[in-house]
């Protein structure tokens, strides 16, 4: 249960099950789980309801009585798991760190929306047979490798 591969298998199967169950509510396909798109749907959907605006969101969230709630679930599920296992620790940062993380969140969401998914939906789209999503995953791996090597280099130059 605690091995990441178990969760990987579970998300894959449940995402397909969720589509089989809910697709009548609206498109798109391969949309069972996505941290970026589902955050977008939740935020824009609630803003639309509250302010009567018309921000873009996926048809499934637009047609349903409330938008997809997966990200709210992840937050609550993670919180419960951390509390139950005594791993909930408040870790504060300074203003500079908060600003960097906030801006990074904004930027990462723009990038994910331009592609149309976070790393998870990219995996689902690849499994569904969309090879542009595979290009995203390969590019992401290249970005991670470049970033890791940069960090290694920086750490080495600090040691000298």
């Amino acid at each position: 249960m605690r091995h990441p591969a178990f969760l990987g298998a579970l998300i894959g199967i449940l995402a397909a099950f969720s589509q089989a169950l809910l697709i009548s509510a609206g498109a798109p396909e391969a949309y069972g789980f996505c941290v970026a798109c589902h955050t977008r749907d939740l935020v824009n959907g609630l803003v639309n309801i509250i302010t009567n605006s018309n921000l873009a969101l996926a048809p499934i969230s637009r047609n349903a009585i409330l938008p997809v709630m997966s990200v709210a679930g992840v937050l609550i599920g993670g919180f419960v798991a951390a509390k139950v296992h005594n791993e909930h620790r408040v870790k504060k940062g300074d203003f500079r760190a908060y600003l960097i993380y906030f801006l990074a969140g904004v930027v990462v969401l723009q990038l994910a929306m331009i592609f149309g998914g976070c790393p998870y939906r990219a995996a689902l789209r690849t499994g569904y047979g969309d090879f542009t999503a595979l290009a995203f995953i390969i590019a992401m791996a290249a970005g991670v490798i470049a970033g890791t090597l940069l960090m290694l280099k920086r750490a080495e130059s600090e040691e000298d």
Partner: protein
Amino acid sequence: MATGILTKEVAIYAVPLVTLMLGLLIGYLAQRSGYCSIGGFRDWVLFRHTRLLSGYLTLIVASFAGYLLFWLITPQAMEHFFWAFTTGLSTPIPGAPGGLNFAAYLIFAIIPGFFVGLICVFLGGCPIRQTVMASEGNYKAAMFFVGMCVGSILFAAVVSGWVVAMMKALGFGG
């Protein structure tokens, strides 16, 4: 129009409930396992650890297996499975801003992919890891999540339009 197991009248009520249940389960297990896609590639580069990477690679294979399974059970709910065969290689699954050509969508996959990887590895985790760390009490990760929320409105209100206008001006109109 794809038809799922539930009729549209029922599905519109089931969407928030089912996705909430799914999210709860994924969030709980992601906290227990430290699940992270970006971390998988990072740990492999740094230490040749495959624990996290196996989680992400399993997801790709399992999603194919899952969609295949449900395509066999309810083909009408998996209308365009397997996408490359039903729709072709040159059209992506909807998600990115519409109205552009294949070259644009390939650029939209490669450039954002690279920078999502680069940025997230410096932050110590992919979007799901940040969200789970936020729920564990990490305020920096919580700020990342707040940034994603603000970014959602920003993208819908302005950035999406800019990107499409720019790509069309550059000759990538579909």
